[in-house]
């Protein structure tokens, strides 16, 4: 995993990733240079949290580490904060329904 630091402020783990992880608390309006484009954060993104590097459609899979980490539950614009409010797991909840298990 080589990882790529974007504009000194965020980390994209793998080249094909559609999200990057903030390396510091980033304010709304912060612009980052990503592959010659500019991505502007539409809201504040805290350290350790993710934002979209490009538009992600509702239902589209989200990639980090080069693999699918979830699915968008609504349309996501570039620079949007990506977290539990607009992402669902593809491995978790489906399995939960199948198992019918209860949370500890």
């Amino acid at each position, binding site marked *: *995993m*080589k*990882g*790529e*630091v974007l504009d*000194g402020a965020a*980390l994209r*783990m793998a080249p094909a990733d559609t999200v990057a*992880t*903030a*390396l*510091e608390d980033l304010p709304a309006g912060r612009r980052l240079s990503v592959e010659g484009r500019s991505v502007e954060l539409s809201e504040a993104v*805290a*350290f*350790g*949290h*993710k934002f979209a590097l490009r538009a992600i459609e509702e239902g589209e899979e989200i990639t*980090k*580490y080069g*693999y*699918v*980490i*979830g699915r968008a539950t609504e349309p996501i614009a570039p620079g949007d904060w*990506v*977290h*539990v409010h607009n*992402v*669902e*797991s*593809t*491995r*978790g*909840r489906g*399995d*939960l329904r199948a*198992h019918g*298990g*209860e*949370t*500890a």
Partner: protein
Amino acid sequence: MGRMETPPTFTGYRRENGRIGVRNHVAVVPTSVAASSVATRLASDAVARARATPHQMGTSQPEATRRQTERTLAGIGRNPNVGAALVVELGTEDVDAGALADRIAGTGKAVETLTVREVGGTSGALDRGATALERLNAEAESARREEADASELVFGVECGGSDATSGIAANPAVGEACDRLVEHGGTACFSETPEFIGAEHVLAERCVEDEVRERLLDRVDRRERLADLMGTDIRGAQPSPGNQEGGLTTIEEKSLGAISKGGTSPVRGMVDYAEDLPVGGGLVLMDTPGYDVESVVGKVAGGAQVIAFTTGRGSTTGNPIAPVIKVTGNPKTYERMANNMDVNASTVIDGESLETVGGRVYEKLLAVADGTPTEAERRRLEEFAVNEITPIELAELEARG
């Protein structure tokens, strides 16, 4: 870094069976909890080289449980970091100290046994044991120091006390070191099976053979079933609220972050708890619980000479037989707990590339192999526990056939 590069070297202890150790301990191994306190006292009173491995396994265990206990203790004694060993028993255990000693001695090292009941009890055991340790220490001193290269290293990696930095800094950095070691012909091993859940399909894709893939998925399923029996749904409970506050959104993300500590190599094999790890085996998984102390012991019993342990919040645990390198990606942890940390991976946050940080982890691995003590070693911070196959697990294993 090209494939034609010769692997880096270090100076270790060449054992009779050809394996290379990075330390030269005299292990004091009790066969049960009834002999553990004697083992601990013997080691602490004796020369600096003695290292006790106390644990809480009973004198009488169900067969499958006993086999795992024996395999673990034998593996610890056989680890190439051990120059000589003393096996201590009360004398009533199902585990036979003589048989265990034979298994350890099969590597060519000096091994003795001590039976508390046969030497007049506790005080006799402390006397005789002290004398035995002097003899074993002399044997260990005669070990041959020799240059070896990275291809002879079996590197175990662990994560504990994870936080938001683990999956983006410390783990990928250690993963980078694993990739380099594998490229140089060595073995990297990670475990903690419950943490594969959510990313097991990714690991499965990377398995080189069907047999490995099937075993992986079977072991993951087993651990998940075990959690079910305890009333926990791992998938539903992860990431925890604390994890989510830190930025982890899904179990896939968390687990991908966890497995990144093993790097990106193909998965060449999967072994069970405390089973032998191959030398020159590439990336190999071991089925262990997530419980750090038991998981580390499993890998050391499998032959790992060095452990790297990533920790966001600052776990301070070590191991008596293998040096444990602490790597943290959290700058506060590195600062506050500087005396317990070995590698600062939080520089990723400042923009240092993972490649560079990973390189530092790899360099640390080689330095430690060459004799540099870790912070845990300098403080003799050692934890040891054997994973006990409990009756509930036995019943579950039997049910699975």
